[in-house]
């Protein structure tokens, strides 16, 4: 299997492989009008930029980078025009899960996945260190800073703007505000290895919760979006549910330690205020979280009961 990279893609291959097809040609994905994946050796030349994603949830072919046009590009690439919007958005989401499936320095990938196009994991091959640096730069570039230099270099105004567009693709923020990175540790009950997440890479609780779910909850068997059947399940979940960590519908809740050392449920205060006081995060078992802001928890349970899952 080619193109997808990451755990979720092997899941889709194993579905197909059970049907006794083994070796995949990397060119096969270029053959149009394939509703089933035809596995075998041999070149399939021509029209390699055209793809068709088979409709209806089941991936019958391997996704390549071409299936996921950048959100930045103005003109749609041929691959997006040939795929249905639902399958491309769900495949985008599954691939963004794939992005955070593997990796040591995942902050970069989670940022890339959270903002812009879903990309093939680890492609283009840019070191996570460089990605993180560029992300932080995009956030730190102030419009004021550029204005003052633009006064001195009027002739370069257009090129300077070009510059900002490029870097901001690392962080898809139209108005780069003066912000530094804010990495906090995240631990989840039952998982010995903690992670770190850049709070400033997320603009809302929803985005943060989604990143954390991608990082942590995929390890729980029944909420694993990255297996073959789970891939479809994950896609459906993605379309229907909001963040489980925030609405109280999962076994875990998201909590944080504030500057005074108290543990609070995430979601009570406005996002910006939260950023100022959060020191670290913990994905806590719901059973243990009863001591925290009981009213909020109750409210969440009520909301959940009335929600269609």
């Amino acid at each position, binding site marked *: 299997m080619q193109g997808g990279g990451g755990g979720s893609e092997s899941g889709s291959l194993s579905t197909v492989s059970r049907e006794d097809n083994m070796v995949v040609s990397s060119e096969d994905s270029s053959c149009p009008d394939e509703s089933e994946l035809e596995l075998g050796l041999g070149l399939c030349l021509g029209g390699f930029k055209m793809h068709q994603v088979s409709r209806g949830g089941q991936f019958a072919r391997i996704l*390549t980078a071409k299936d996921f046009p*950048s959100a930045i590009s103005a003109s749609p690439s041929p691959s997006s025009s040939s795929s249905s919007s639902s399958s491309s958005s769900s495949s985008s989401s599954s691939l963004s899960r794939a992005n955070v499936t593997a990796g040591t320095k995942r902050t970069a990938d989670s940022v890339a996945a959270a903002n812009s196009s879903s990309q093939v994991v680890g492609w283009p091959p840019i070191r996570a260190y460089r990605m993180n640096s560029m992300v932080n730069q995009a956030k730190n570039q102030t419009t004021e800073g550029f204005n003052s230099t633009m006064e001195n270099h009027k002739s370069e105004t257009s090129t300077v703007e070009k510059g900002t567009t490029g870097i901001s693709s690392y962080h898809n923020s139209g108005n780069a505000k003066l912000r530094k990175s804010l990495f906090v540790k995240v631990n989840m009950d039952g998982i010995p290895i903690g992670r770190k997440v850049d709070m400033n890479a997320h603009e809302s609780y929803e985005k943060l919760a989604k990143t954390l779910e991608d990082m942590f909850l995929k390890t729980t068997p029944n909420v694993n979006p990255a297996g073959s059947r*789970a891939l479809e399940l994950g896609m459906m979940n993605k379309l229907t549910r909001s963040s489980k960590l925030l609405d109280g519908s999962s076994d875990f809740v998201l909590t944080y330690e504030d500057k005074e050392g108290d543990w609070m449920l995430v979601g009570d205060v406005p996002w910006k205020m939260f950023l100022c006081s959060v020191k670290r995060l913990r994905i806590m078992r719901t059973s243990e979280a009863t001591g925290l802001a009981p009213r909020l928890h109750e409210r969440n349970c009520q909301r959940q009961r009335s929600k269609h899952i």
Partner: protein
Amino acid sequence: MAYSFPDEVLEHVFSFIQSDKDRNAVSLVCKSWYEIERWCRRKVFIGNCYAVSPRMVIRRFPEVRSIKLKGKPHFADFNLVPDGWGGYVLPWIAEMAGAYPWLEEIRLKRMVVTDESLELIAKSFKNFKVLVLFSCEGFSTDGLAAIAASCKNLRELDLRESEVDDLSGHWLAHFPETCTSLVSLNISCLRSDEVSFSALERLVGRCPNLRSLRLNRAVTLDKIANILRRAPQLVDFGTGYYAAELQPDVFSNLAGAFSSCKELKSLSGFWDVVPAYLPALYSICPRLTSLNLSYATIQSPDLIKLVSHCPRLQRLLVLDYVEDSGLEELASSCKDLQELRVFPSDPFGAEPNVSLTEQGLVAVSLGCPKLRSVLYFCRRMSNAALVTIAQNRPNLTRFRLCIIEPKTPDYLTLEPLDVGFGAIVEHCKDLSRLSLSGLLTDHVFEYIGTYGKKLEMLSVAFAGDSDLGLHHVLSGCESLRKLEIRDCPFGDKALLANAAKLETMRSLWMSSCAVSFGACKLLGQKMPKLNVEVIDETEPPDSRPESCPVDKLYIYRSVAGPRFDMPPFVWTMDEAVRILH
């Protein structure tokens, strides 16, 4: 002949032999040379920390002073290796703490280092001098504080590109006032904005031998002048932020500070550059041999101006803002250029945002006769351009081309780029490292197998048609040590047919290919000197039929047997261990 030199004489002779290869050769001459050599080997390089155990190293080389270890596979740099895979240095430090009390140097790459490891280093090695953590992770500034406080003769502390839990900048204050031995300090990866600047200034001021200093982003432009004035002997300097509102007095202070550094040859850093401050560097540009502007979002005209002041430049790292025009200027100004790296400013954009094409690289290949090492990200390439580059520069030793869109063909002919890369391997007879991209069939591997006799490291992605491709490489590339492959249709046949080859290599990585679980088991069974590890984060590989391909495969030779620190998503194919599992 009955005479032989006394051991001390041989030892003295051997002390002039520094290279590992030569030392290894010496040790094979006869038993007594093996014995003498092993007692006087001071430096050990271990390219894969799992290829051998610490005990084995200590047993053979009891008097080591300097060790270099590498951990994770290279593709870990691109997030292809999951967290928790391994590469822990603690077991090594723990063993060496007892066995090598006089250890002076530890250099690590892609390893997991904890504060506990750093604290152990700090207290175990009384004469510790050099700590280089290249692309490592798992530690915080607390661990650094321990090193700073305890290592009285510390010469080098280099954290390049590591991921550090930056708890506070105050760790710098842990360097005692008596510490004057620093020669190299690289803290450029530290992310926090609190750096104890006064501690840094004092430290720099009292270390007269400081040659290399790389600051992090917390150090603002106005502070650079202060630092430089305290260390005019610097040879290598990494700035922090190079941006501020343009103020004449700040500018002239900075320019003056730079001009007082008569030895400065290498510059890096340059996050957030305000172009107006670049002329402050002009006084040192004529001496510059290395310039890393790969984080500087400055445009081609500013880059051209700067580069045209640097005729002695040997190494340039830059973003693709340099454009073809900038590279043409580089080609005409910098005749000493040996290494060029061009990084993408907008890697995820579908459309090019800058005018950088294959033309820039062709220009540099034509104009820079000493060019040996290339890393180039671009969006289009042609066979014609590659052939031209190959013919212009047969002295290339490292050629890494990344055409951003996978499977992009020759933009002129729409053909695969087999012929172009074939020309590279054919003409560049000393090529030791190659990374491929673009549309490629099995033919390119045929060329590589035929001509790539000195090739040591090959990176392949989204290429090839069949097992034949892999077979060409494994059977033809005699010097191959590291092979990393992703998203290629290579399966069991080539791998099993060339199993013996794998024992001559350091490692093989294959992800998103077509190697079956059954083949992995077979390899693990038949090749006891190989560790065959399958990585799968979704489910155990034996929960599926044997013919199913594995997600990721990492094979490496080892005399230490299978490792026991594997996380749940890594499975060894070592039969004995698997059965016990």
